[in-house]
Every structure is written in structure tokens, then in C-alpha cells.
């Protein structure tokens, strides 16, 4: 067999044998890629299990088995370990700062899927040290990057094509995130929404396979228990949706504040002199430790156990509100200093506490509200996810996946919509895009894709000025019909379907050849025109307008019915107008 890649074969395939060879080769590589996705999931799962164990050992070792306010270790551990993490980040692993989602996205779009294995190692060590010592960050985003990095390393080992290597990063990312969160559907959606940034069915199968296999591995080792033990949740009266809408509004405002705080302080701290990098992470650790030491050790680390407790009514609403505010402060402190660690867990923490607090306040004024604290906390998680991370699809499915209760879907959708819309208006750039731009990159965003204006064929379509001829007409009659019109090119409807065109000169020539009484069908060449439908993206028209100056736009219901015509001038004119509009309105992209 040839050593050429399928793409090179495709470019040169000339004979049927070569075409068959090409098809076989592509099919084989696709199968290989799918099976490789399973292995990526397995390895990412193993890596994430080790990562979680390492964090937990660090946590018990640094902070003790039951961290309590007043324990001096809460002050010392994050500060001392912070110094070590700062040194590691500065000298050994400079690429591991922050969450890892952006780096993975950059790898996909800029570095052809290349993520150094050293990054995975660095992220593993530094994030585990930071989170274990009490920095207010989570393990999910680092897991995502570790998974992507493992996948990238594997792809490079097998010398996969650049195209495949690029696709491996999201496959590994989904596996890592699914393993960390024990929620495969949310992981797949998050990777699509935040890493790939586009709905692409091309790698969906691989992403799903890797996510599921990594979750299987994690459950094999750590059990199949969900992250939280959710008490019975649900919606009893539809009127209570108003209460959840209020939660959505407050959550949207909180998410905006959270995002703005990070967006404001991060570039400023990065612009400080180089020597301050040594003290930023330990100082953040010290301040967070102080919060814990003075009475709120719950804000230290990922805090999943405290979310669980909040759902079981352990904290009064004032405490929940207090913890939500402190967690925003603590997470902002950790993150803006460049401490390696994720935003996933803190977002959920803030959401759970805020949700529980809002539910508690609402019950004071309306004691008949039936929603439990767990219900509000769960909805709150989704709200912050939608408002802060701006991943609306993921936010809904994440809540459903961790609760295992689909009766909560309506409150979640209502609250998330409010949070998303408020956050979208007050903070136009999503947090991950903001971080990316602060790093000097511009990567595709699903939010932009969702909101971009898509030009369609109908936007550039025009009513044909010239008469439409029929292939059953005689040449003479056709010639008579076009006499009054100005155009040179005329569309001819073929029987039983299809379209072709002719010009004035051709008609004259046919009459000159004595074919006046022949039908157009018998006199014209058999070449058919390509056609379009009104709803197709306008870029489809670009493929055809250079083949034919006039392309028929026909109805999907009746292929003989002409809706309009597309011309080269009309298409280009439409793009020119759209470009001017986008300069005045904002961003414009092709779909």
C-alpha cells in the first residue's frame, strides 16, 4: 500500500482503482481515530484519577482532615505552597498559568493541536499543589488541559496528520473534563461550546467516545456516585418559576461582577514588575488562608463537600450569601495571580451558595414556596454557569446530570436564561474570550457564532427581469418572447425538471440554422445549470456564480417553481453592504 496520506491521494486520484484506495484509506483512518479516542479517554481517565488523588492527599497533608477556622495551617499552607507554585510556574512550567481551557483552545486553533506533554505534567503538579493547599480553584479545567495534552502527545507519537492532530485536542479535553466532573454529557457540550467553539459533527463521535470511556475509568476507581447527594428536588407549582427567575437575575448580576473583577485585575497584576510574580501567588494564598482562618474555611479549595452540605440545609441563608461573596473574592484572588487551577468548581460553589441564599430569603417573604434549598442550590449552579462561563447548553445539562432529576429542567432553563441575558448585556465578552484577548489571541467563540448575522441566498436573490422560457417552446416563439426584454441571458425550464440557460446570440444562430420550429429542448445543448434554494447560506452561491452568471433559486417544495435568480453582482453587492453594516454594528463573519 502507498505511504501517501488520504489527502495526497485525493489530490492525485485519477483512476477508479486509486479512488477506491482513497476511500478505503480514509475509512481505515477514521476507524483508527475512533478507537484511538477510546484509548485517549482511558488514559485521560487514569490521569485524572491520579490528579484527584494527588489533590486529596495534598489537602489532607497541608490542611488536615477537617479544616476548621483558627487552625494555623490554613494560613501557612497556602502561603508556603504558594511560593513553591510561583517558582514552578516561573521557572519550570510557564505555560500552566490559569485554567487551561484557553490554552487548549489556542492549541486547537493556532498550534495545530500541539500541547507539550511538559504542560500536562506541570499542570498536574502545580494545580494539585495549589488546590490542595487551599487556593480557591477547581480541578476540572486543569483536567481538561491534562486530557488534551495526553491526547496531543499520543497523536504526535503516532505521527497523525496535522488535521487529525488538531482534532485530538478537543477529544482529550472532553475526556479530561468528563473524568473530573463525572458528567460526560456536560463535558462534551462544554468542549463544543468553549473549546471547539463551533457545532461540528465531524468529531462528535470521537469526543463522545473519549468522554464516556474516561468516565467509565473514573467510576471504576472512584465509584459511580455523583458529585453531590441531591435530596428530592422538583417544581411543584409553576408560579414558583418567578422565584427562580429572581435567582436568575441575581445570579446574572453576581456572574457579571465575578467576570468583571477578573477581567479588571488580571491584566493589571500581570503588568506589575517581574519580581512581584514571586509573591503574587503566595500573597493570594495568604489572603485566602486568612479568610479560612477567620471563619470561612469552606472557601478554600474546590469546596465540593460544602456544596453538598449547602444542599442538605446545613447553612442558614446568611451564611450561604456570605460564602458566595467570599468565594468570589477568593477565586478572583487566586485566578488573577495566575495560579494554576480551574474556574469550574468555584463557579458551581458560588452558584450553589447564592442559590441557597436566594431561596432562603424568598422563603422568608413567601413561606409557602415549596422549593428546597437543594433545588435552589442546583438551579444556582446552573445560573452561575450560564452567566459566568457563558455556556448555556452545558449549564442546563450539567444541572440535570448532577441531579439526575429532569423535573428541575424548567426552573433551570428559566433562571439560566435570565442570568445569561443579563450577563450578556452587562459583560458583552464571555470570560474565556476575555482572557484569550488579554493574552493577545483571538479565537472563535460559539457565542459570537450564535449571534453573528448569517447571509442567506434569499438576501441576495432577485426577481428575474427577463421572461422564463420553457423547453417545450419552439425557438421562434422563444425569440418572439425575448424581443421586449433588455437582458442577454435567459433561463429555460426543462422537463420534467431542471434548468438551463441560453443567450440571444444562440437563439439567433438556431433560427439562422433553420431550427425555428424545433423545440428548445431538442435544439439546446443538454448541460444543466446548478440551482440554489432561498434558505441556503449565501456562501453556497459563491461556489456557483463563477460557473454561471445567473443561478436559479428554486422552491424546495416544487423544483419547477422559480423563486428568483442569483447573479454575481448581487452576491458581491450583498457582501459589500454587510461589511459596511458590520463595521458600524460590530462583528460580522461568514457562517
Amino acid at each position, binding site marked *: *500500500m502507498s*505511504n501517501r*496520506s488520504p489527502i495526497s491521494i485525493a489530490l492525485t486520484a485519477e483512476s477508479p482503482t486509486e479512488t477506491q484506495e482513497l476511500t478505503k*484509506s480514509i475509512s*481505515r*483512518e477514521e*476507524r*483508527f481515530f475512533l*478507537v*484511538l479516542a477510546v*484509548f485517549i479517554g*482511558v*488514559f485521560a481517565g*487514569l490521569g485524572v*484519577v*491520579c490528579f484527584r*488523588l494527588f489533590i*486529596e*492527599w495534598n489537602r*489532607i497533608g497541608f490542611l488536615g*482532615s*477537617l479544616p476548621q477556622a483558627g487552625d494555623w495551617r490554613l494560613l501557612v499552607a497556602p502561603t508556603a505552597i504558594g511560593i513553591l507554585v510561583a517558582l514552578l510556574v516561573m521557572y519550570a512550567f510557564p505555560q500552566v498559568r490559569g485554567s487551561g481551557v484557553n490554552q487548549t483552545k489556542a492549541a486547537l486553533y493556532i498550534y495545530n493541536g500541539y500541547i507539550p506533554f511538559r504542560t500536562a505534567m506541570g499542570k498536574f503538579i502545580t494545580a494539585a499543589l495549589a488546590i490542595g493547599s487551599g487556593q480557591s480553584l477547581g480541578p476540572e479545567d486543569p483536567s481538561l488541559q491534562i486530557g488534551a495534552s495526553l491526547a496531543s502527545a499520543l497523536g504526535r*507519537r*503516532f*505521527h*497523525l*496528520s496535522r488535521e487529525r492532530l488538531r482534532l485530538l485536542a478537543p477529544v482529550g479535553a472532553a475526556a479530561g473534563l468528563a473524568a473530573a466532573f463525572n458528567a460526560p454529557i456536560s463535558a462534551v457540550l462544554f468542549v463544543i461550546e468553549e473549546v471547539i467553539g463551533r457545532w461540528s459533527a465531524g468529531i462528535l463521535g470521537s469526543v463522545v467516545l473519549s468522554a464516556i470511556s474516561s468516565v467509565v475509568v473514573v467510576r471504576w*476507581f*472512584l*465509584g459511580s*456516585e455523583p458529585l453531590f*447527594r441531591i*435530596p*428530592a428536588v422538583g417544581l411543584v407549582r409553576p408560579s414558583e418559576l418567578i422565584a427562580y427567575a429572581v435567582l436568575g437575575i441575581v445570579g446574572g448580576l453576581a456572574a457579571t461582577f465575578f467576570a468583571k473583577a477578573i477581567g479588571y485585575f488580571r491584566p493589571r497584576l500581570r503588568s506589575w514588575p517581574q519580581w512581584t510574580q514571586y509573591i503574587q501567588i503566595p500573597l493570594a494564598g495568604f489572603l485566602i488562608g486568612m479568610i479560612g482562618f477567620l471563619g470561612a474555611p469552606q472557601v478554600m479549595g474546590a469546596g465540593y*463537600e460544602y456544596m*453538598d*452540605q449547602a444542599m*442538605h*440545609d*446545613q447553612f442558614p441563608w446568611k451564611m450561604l450569601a456570605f460564602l458566595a461573596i467570599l468565594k468570589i473574592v477568593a477565586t478572583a484572588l487566586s485566578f488573577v495571580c495566575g495560579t494554576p487551577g480551574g474556574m469550574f468548581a468555584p463557579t458551581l460553589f458560588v452558584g450553589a451558595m447564592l442559590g441557597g441564599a436566594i431561596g432562603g430569603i424568598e422563603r422568608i417573604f413567601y413561606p409557602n414556596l415549596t422549593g*428546597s434549598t*437543594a433545588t435552589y442550590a442546583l438551579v444556582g449552579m446552573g445560573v452561575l454557569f450560564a452567566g459566568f462561563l457563558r455556556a448555556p447548553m452545558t449549564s442546563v445539562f450539567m444541572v440535570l446530570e448532577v441531579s439526575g432529576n429532569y423535573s428541575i429542567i424548567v426552573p433551570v432553563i428559566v433562571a439560566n436564561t435570565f442570568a445569561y441575558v443579563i450577563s450578556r448585556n452587562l459583560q458583552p465578552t464571555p470570560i474565556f474570550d476575555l482572557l484569550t484577548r488579554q493574552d493577545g489571541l483571538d479565537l472563535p467563540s460559539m457565542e459570537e457564532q450564535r449571534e453573528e448575522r448569517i447571509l442567506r441566498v434569499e438576501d441576495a436573490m432577485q426577481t428575474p427581469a427577463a421572461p422564463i422560457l420553457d423547453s417545450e417552446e419552439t425557438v421562434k416563439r422563444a425569440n418572439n418572447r425575448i424581443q421586449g426584454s433588455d437582458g442577454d441571458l435567459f433561463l429555460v425550464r426543462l422537463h420534467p425538471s431542471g434548468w438551463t440557460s441560453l443567450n440571444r446570440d444562440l437563439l439567433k444562430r438556431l433560427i439562422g440554422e433553420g431550427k425555428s420550429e424545433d423545440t428548445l429542448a431538442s435544439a439546446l445543448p443538454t448541460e444543466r445549470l446548478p440551482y440554489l434554494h432561498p434558505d441556503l447560506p449565501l456562501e453556497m452561491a459563491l461556489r456557483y456564480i463563477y460557473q454561471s452568471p445567473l443561478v436559479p433559486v428554486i422552491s424546495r417544495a416544487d423544483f419547477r417553481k422559480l423563486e428568483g435568480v442569483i447573479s454575481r453582482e448581487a452576491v458581491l453587492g450583498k457582501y459589500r453592504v454587510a461589511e459596511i453594516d458590520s463595521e458600524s454594528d460590530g462583528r460580522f463573519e461568514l457562517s
Partner: protein
Amino acid sequence: MSFPDAAELRNRPGVIFAALTLVAVLGFAGVTRLTKRYHDQQKAVARRLYARGLDDQKEGQFDNAISDFRAALSYDRDNFYYELSLARALRDNGRMNEAEAYLVNLWERTPQDGFVNLALGRLAARQSKIDKAIQYYHNAIYGVWPSNAENNRRTAEFELIAFLLRQGAQSQAEAELIAVAATLPPDDVILQTHVAQLLAQVGMHDRALALFKKVLQEDRSSKPALDGAANSAFELGHYRSAEGYLRRSLALDPHNEQNRDLLETITLVLEMDPYDRRLSTVGRIRRLRAAFDVASKRLSVCLADKQGVPDTPWTALQANWMQMKGKLSHLTDADAETFDAAMDLINQIEQHAQLDCGPPARTDRALLLLSATRFGAER
């Protein structure tokens, strides 16, 4: 490890996947060792925290105990006993909603478990939720107990009955008691006595008496059984039996004032009973007249109190009394109808007097008891 290049990869995917599988197996082996160590450590931490929680609980430091149990559970999330202890501590600390959340979680995992159902039953009982309490207590009674099942089931049964009695759910308590009485072990006189006492408490004196008798067959000198039997016999109007049980009980405990008082009442009832089959006709008539005299005194006292109050039942009673007095002066043994009518009038006088003229004297009470027994027997 050396990997083939892209060409070989496409040609020999089987080899590649075998190699990947080998690496995965090695990875699984390594991570298995790590996770085992991790789980062992977590369980050890959990045990330590649980033990500390138990100590806190013993010392009455419930908040600390809850905190420790909760932490223990976070390190060993599947541990049934940690979760149950946490739920119980929360319940005992009045944090019902939290306790319920944990208990329901446990119940969903092991719906047949006796401990969990009993704890949920107690929680429902504390929340005065009768239906839920009955449901969970029943689950506990018929559920699975890892050890000491019989005792635990009995505990659940008696707790349920006590709860129902507290709630005034008399008929449900009776139903539970009948079910319990039917399954009592034949040789456990203490349990039988307890059930008999509960039966007596809900007014099922016939069943109670039968059970007390059963106990006394096993243990003739059981004082609780003698007292219970005497009381039930008394309530049923079996004064002769009651007298016998009371005498036996007083022989064991001569200073029991309550029993002595009851015995005196019973003796008086028996002495005043004109229906005593052992009496001759003359004796019966004499007792009837004595009873009539007692009622007459009661009537005269009441009439003196109610003088000047128009349209009272006493006017009619006085008229009947006058009429009956004349009849009784020449009552013969053949006139059973007058005998019964006289007893009816005595009963009416005593009943009205009890309502209108204060508590009855011992003799009046004896007449009331005789009437109750007579009407009970007729019913």
C-alpha cells in the same frame, strides 16, 4: 517505548492497539494500587472522625458530633453507619429536614433496612406525621435487621403503638395491638404483660384479661399481671374475679393503697348487688330496698340543692321516686318488672346526681357500677 511511524500505523493497527491495551493495563494496575492506598487512607480518616463524633455525642456536644459525622461521611461516602449516625444526630438535634434528607437517601439505597425505617419512623413521629410514621414503622417491623431482629421489631412495634396512643389514634393503636398480641412468644411473660397492659390502656379489657390470665398461668405471683387482671376484670364488671385478683395482689403487696381502695369498692359493689344469684328472693329484695334508700338520700340532697329551679329533671325523678316508694313497700318475689324498674330509677337518680350534685359517695359509686354492669350485660 518505540512507536511505528504513520505508514506502519495504517498497516498494522492491531499491533498498535495491542500496545495501547498493554499500556492501559499497566496504567490500570498502577492506579489500582494508588486508589487502594487512597481508599484505605480515606477510610482510616473517616473511622477516626466517626469515633470522635461518637465521643462528642456521649459528652452531649451534638454540634461537634454532627460536624465529625459529616466529615467522616465525606471521607467514606458509602458508609451506611456514618450516614445513619449523622441522620440520627441531626434528628436528635432537632434538624429534621437535614436528617430526613440523609435518611431518605439511605432509604433509597436500602429500602428494606430496619434501622433506616425505624429512624425514619421516629422522625415522622416527631413531626407528628401519622401516615408516614405508620408506613416507616411497618417497614421496620417487617424489614431486614442484621442482628437482634426480634427485639428491634418489638421496639418498633411498641414505639408505633405508643406514638399512636399519644396522637389519639385509638383505632389504629388497637389494630396494631391486636397484631402484636397475635404474635407474642408464649414463654415471654414480661412481653405478654406489657401487651396486656397496653390492651387495657386502649380499653380492650377482654383481650387484656385473657392475656393477663395467660401470664398468671405461667407465673401465679406476677404482681403486674394480678393488678392488670384485677383492673380489667373490674372494668368488665367481673367483680368477683377482680376481687380474687386484688386479694392475691394485696397478699403480695399489702400496702398498696390503690388496690386496697379498689378492693373496698368492689366489696361494696358485691355486697350491694341485688342480682347476685346466690341470694334468696328475700335477700334480693332487701338489697334492692337498701339501694333504694341510698338513692333516696342522694335524691333528697340534690332536691334540696335544686329547690326553686323550675323544669329540672329532678321534678320528674321525684314523682317517679314517690310512686316507686309505694310499690316497693309491698314488693313480692313474683314482681320482677317492678324490681327492674326500681333498679332503673336508682340508676337514673345516680346518673343525674353524678352530673348535677357533685362526685358520688362510695355507696353511690357502687350503685353506678352495678348499673353499668347490668346495662353492659344487657347490651
